């Protein structure tokens, strides 16, 4: 672990570069109200963030990332377009691996802009890449929006599409649902018995708890409708799987996705976005011919990214966390904006890892 003063100095240099790129420096609190983060990320965040409390404010979390407070600040009184930069510690609870840092610096760059999303995506990526130049890194990119569009375009019920969309970020569960809806996996015996029963709602159990019998009946009705719906066709499953397996340089991936779009017209618009982003990256001087694109990239990270996603990795060092990560999170601004929304994209660099690499060089 490099010493903290050195990491701070490196962070200051990154902040200066982000300011020079047009970002306004902002300061964020270290303690965040737990309820907002819990509502957003669910219980998983408790496994990753330190929770503390007092008798007046209740549960507070030590800042696990900057995105949420920055979005809240912007939605409360920011005028758009806006660019922000911040630097400071984030805290991550580690329960499995003591060698992983539980406290480290992040320096971020966030863009809130209603115009031209492709240009904003490219801007954030290029600004990060520029700040990281001089260190040999491998960049990975992806696009959650293409997957979401493919799911939305499936020829099946709204209910199934909603369930699949909800689990895009949990690949194993997503696969299990796809198997169920395509008839590959049989339904559990208990569900078959439930569906075969004439009147499952007639029983002697007392009605306890907040989930009402009307809600139970409604779900059974949904399950019945689902049992009567046609399975998702093998071709559609194949297309989704082919899409998930796309992993090539960006121009080749784009070609591949366009070919898939012939049979999956729902992803046509998303493919155009990918093309526009590629051109915008090129215009920013990014070498797109060697840039990797992986359709499944970002699926296991935080649930809020819903478009472009990227990360910078140290080649041959799977033991090191990514030096930088980022992505688009339009939906998050909608959730936190209470009715208002604004397209947003951003990324963070970990100066601690950067110093470690620069010292070793």
């Amino acid at each position, binding site marked *: 672990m490099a010493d903290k003063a050195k990491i701070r100095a490196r962070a200051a240099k990154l902040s200066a570069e982000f300011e020079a790129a047009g970002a306004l420096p902002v300061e964020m609190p270290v303690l965040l109200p737990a309820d907002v983060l819990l509502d957003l990320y669910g*219980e998983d965040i*408790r496994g990753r963030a330190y929770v503390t409390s007092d008798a007046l404010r209740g549960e507070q979390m030590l800042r696990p990332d900057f995105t949420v407070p920055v979005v809240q600040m912007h939605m409360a009184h920011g005028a758009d377009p806006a660019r922000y930069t911040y630097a400071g510690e984030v805290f991550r609870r580690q329960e499995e691996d003591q060698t992983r840092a539980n406290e480290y610096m992040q320096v971020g760059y966030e863009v809130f802009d209603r115009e031209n999303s492709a240009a904003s995506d490219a801007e954030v990526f290029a600004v990060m890449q520029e700040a990281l130049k001089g260190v040999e890194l491998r960049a990975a990119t992806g696009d959650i929006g293409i997957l979401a569009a493919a799911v939305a375009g499936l020829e099946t019920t709204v209910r199934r599409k909603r369930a699949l969309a909800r689990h895009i970020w*949990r690949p194993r569960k997503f696969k*299990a649902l796809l198997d169920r809806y395509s008839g590959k996996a049989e339904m559990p015996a208990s*569900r078959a018995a*439930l569906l075969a029963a004439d009147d499952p709602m007639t029983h002697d159990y007392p009605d*306890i*708890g907040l989930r009402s*019998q009307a809600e139970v009946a409604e779900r059974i009705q949904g399950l019945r409708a689902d049992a009567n719906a046609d399975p998702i066709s093998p071709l559609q499953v194949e297309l989704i799987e082919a899409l998930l397996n796309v992993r090539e340089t960006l121009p080749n991936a784009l070609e591949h996705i366009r070919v898939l779009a012939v049979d999956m017209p729902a992803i046509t618009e998303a493919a155009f976005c990918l093309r526009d982003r590629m051109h915008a990256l090129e215009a920013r001087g990014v070498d797109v011919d060697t840039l990797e694109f992986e359709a499944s990239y970002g699926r296991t990270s935080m649930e809020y990214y819903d478009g472009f996603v990227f990360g910078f990795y140290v080649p041959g060092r799977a033991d090191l966390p990514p030096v930088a990560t980022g992505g688009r999170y339009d939906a998050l601004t909608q959730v936190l904006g209470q009715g208002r929304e604004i397209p947003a994209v951003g990324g963070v660099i970990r100066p601690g890892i950067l110093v470690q690499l620069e010292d070793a060089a």
Partner: protein
Amino acid sequence: MTIKLGVPSKGRLMEKTFDWFGARGVTLSRIGSDREYAGAVSGVDGVELVLLSAGEIPRELAAGRIHLGVTGTDLVREKLGQWEQQVQEKAELGFGHADLIIGVPACWVDVDTLEDLDAAAAAFRRAHGFRLRIATKYHRLVREFLQDNGVADYQLVDSQGATEGTIKNLTAEGVADITSTGDTLRANHLKILSDAVMLKSQATLFKSRKADMDDEERSAMGTLLVQLGLDG
């Protein structure tokens, strides 16, 4: 110096532990008044009995303040990160059996599996505006289990006792708790999800990997383990 053996300080767990050691020629007993937490060991030399709350034994083992301890597997896994590197399982004692399970109201006739629970949680959140609540004291085990099994839209609420009552009191929709017979669950009109047995726990003798021992203590440990039929 002596090696320290941590044993639950009261109730059936203590008595059964005393019986288990007694059957192997190591007599454990409490001394002084019923209320005094002091114990004695006979049948083997160099071993000191420490009476502790079963819930504190994992922590004491991990800190190396006791060399051996009897407690439930559930408590070790809940309280210790990377438990295998901190303690070693020496023997399952064959009592204190309990499963960590998920219970929901029996009147949820549509819910039998984790897949059902996940779907019900999604609908519940849409209808009520907050995540479906599961009351438990096993936060870490339950969170990891539900995450591995693709359950989302739930939240854990802390319950250190009378967990089965939380549903009727409208402070939770489901529970995650240990049960041996399921009687308490049934009495509270709950049922167990069929594919959600997170852990099968029983009283187990653990050896600390963190407690230092000098030659004398190492020899006492060796003798004790041989006496217990567990070879050093």
